[in-house]
């Protein structure tokens, strides 16, 4: 089953990269086994115009999540550094498949 541009959900409840078939997680946590890297927001490119410290007291970072196999970028966010990632998904329909 298609999840997004990069991920497929298999009948056994595993989520895998559509490009290299590496497992990235499960239906309830599709990116649980993916590679995470945090770095400066400016690494997102020249569109991040000014340092966050000019405007806010909290540090801001670019958090990127990659396929552990082919390193395709699965998710990217620029967020306060002291916050966990709120961006999650859980596909109930495949959770049921996991129990099969």
């Amino acid at each position: 089953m298609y999840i997004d541009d990069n991920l497929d959900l298999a009948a056994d409840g595993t989520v895998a990269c559509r490009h290299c078939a590496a497992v990235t997680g499960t239906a309830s946590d599709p990116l649980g086994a993916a590679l995470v890297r945090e770095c400066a927001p400016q690494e997102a490119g020249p569109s991040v115009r000014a340092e966050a410290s000019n405007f806010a007291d909290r540090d801001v970072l670019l958090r990127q999540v990659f396929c552990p196999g082919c390193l395709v970028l699965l998710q990217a966010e620029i967020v306060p550094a002291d916050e966990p990632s709120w961006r999650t998904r859980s596909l109930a329909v495949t959770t049921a498949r996991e129990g099969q």
Partner: protein
Amino acid sequence: MPVIPVDGAEEFANLPVSAAHTRHVAGASIRLHDVSPELVDGIDPLTYEVIRHRLTSITEEMGEALKRMSGSVVVTDCNDFDAAIMDEVGDVVQVGLYNTELAASLDMAVSWTLRERAARPGIGPGDMFLCNDPWVGGGLHQNDVSLFAPLFVDGELFCWTGAVAHQVDLGGVSPGSWSVAATDVFWESIPLPPVKIVEAGEIRDDIEDVYLRRSRVPKLVALDLRAKIGANNVAHERLRALCQKYGADTVKAVMRRAMNDAESRLRAKLTELPDGTWTSVAHQDSARSGDRGIYKIVLTLTKRGDRLTFDFTGTDPQVDGLINCTYAGLRGGIMPVFLTTVCGDIPWAPGGLWRCIDIVSEPGTINNCTFPAGIGKASVASAWATTNVATECISGMLDAHPEHRRRMMSVCCGTWDFALLAGVDQRGAGFVTMICDSMAGGLGARSDADGVDTGGLACIPMGRVADVEMNEFAFPMLYLWRREEADSGGPGRYRGGVGASSCFIPYDSPLGGVHLVVSAPGKALPLAAGLSGGLPAGTQHDVLLRGTAVRAALAGGRLPGSLDDIGGTRELVPSHHETDLGPDDVYFTHWQGGGGYGDPLRRDPAAVAADVAARKVTARAAADVYGVSLGAGGAADLAETELNRAALRRRRAGLDDTETAGG
């Protein structure tokens, strides 16, 4: 000074109630028209479609009437308004295509009016009620003034029509009612709960005086009031004709059927989508001038069978500032993106759509605040951020379906780039206006296409940007440029639409300069997120240049084309700021594009090369973000690009520090 709690303020808050409850309460004082379910079910398909489309066209006519009578550029040229037709208890049968955010809670205001005003002072033919209290409904912040009107047919209240438009100033500490230093609502325009401003077809002078006295531009606001009266009158004339031709019962049956149809078709679509939950977050930096906080709205969207639950648990508490929104703002944040992404092939009858949606939200949070929280910026702050997070979750849900994923879209222009000018215009009259250039925001990328460059805003399907010449004619300003900005669209396999910038000077005011109010977050972090590996759009970027020689350059026949050309002393403008622009000062404002979709390293190199040629993407971003090497003629060098991408793929994941070959 601390925000002083207001005793009894909990009674100010209004929440949606069932049609049956509204009917029960109001029915004691007023005769409400109704039809039987059998009549609704029995309406023939041809009659249904003819009348339903007529209702749609009436909302468009309301918009045309409003634009033709208004004198505000915000309305006439930028379409910052909307109109709707509601049934006898306020359920929305048809919403106009203009700013759907504004009209998303008209139903709440009408229902409140029926429950609270039907007995005293009463609701009769020719009456119209004015409201700018977002705790009641009808708009998202005090500038969104709604005017809704009951239509009586044969002695019964048959339906309501409503028009909402952004008024450029309704008082408060700062011009434009945009008090950037506000800690609570008492710094702002004081909200007016629904009040009968038109009675039996005549404007009540006493009420109008109370309304207008607060404004710095009362004549303009008075004209807009008449424009909204005109819009309602046009709608009533058309609806009466419709009832005369087909019978009131038939028209009402179509109204019911349209809402039922919207509900059933939405349920069918939801059933096709996989069950699951999608959680995301939307941030805002700064709650008022001087504040350096970052605030979040968290949404968990759960789809089970044919229902959706929008659960905002985890959202930050309301804050002492102007960025909060009420429950009406929260609804206004959800419905616009819901209409455009999920309901493109479903009647825009929110009265039926809401039946499929549950909302979980804690009062006292930034997108469900309690009185007297500051809400002066609600529409483009927490309501907008609600749209952003709803866009992510809804699009994530759609992305999991092979067909419906084609309707998803990454987050559009992450926020409204608010710049307001006030002072004395070139004709010697006082003026206040919001510059609506950021109506040309970048749309989010889709799963199969780039976002539309300067394509608009998710919440305003028919939003427009005023011509440069119109702004220069209407206000004492002169543009140095307004143009698309490279790299402002979020990188991705499909790129987010680019945003743009404007650069202008005060010009021809007898005072020499103008007053400037800035309220534009997204500077500490971008607010238009990408999806499925797409990167966010660029950050908001505003710069004040003081003491420039721009007038000498213009006198010499040279038009500066960049900030470096302009010279002077640069000031990075914070998210909330209020200042004066002197005759030698220049203001540069650069708003956001749309988020990207998919990994940028999977973008067709030829598309990147075309973007560089079209100045949508810089050569630097082509190399550093897309890994594309461009040959001497500007075409992508595919062999070198492949090498670049292989190296960049490892480097961005932190696996080694090897520089890309083309970097």
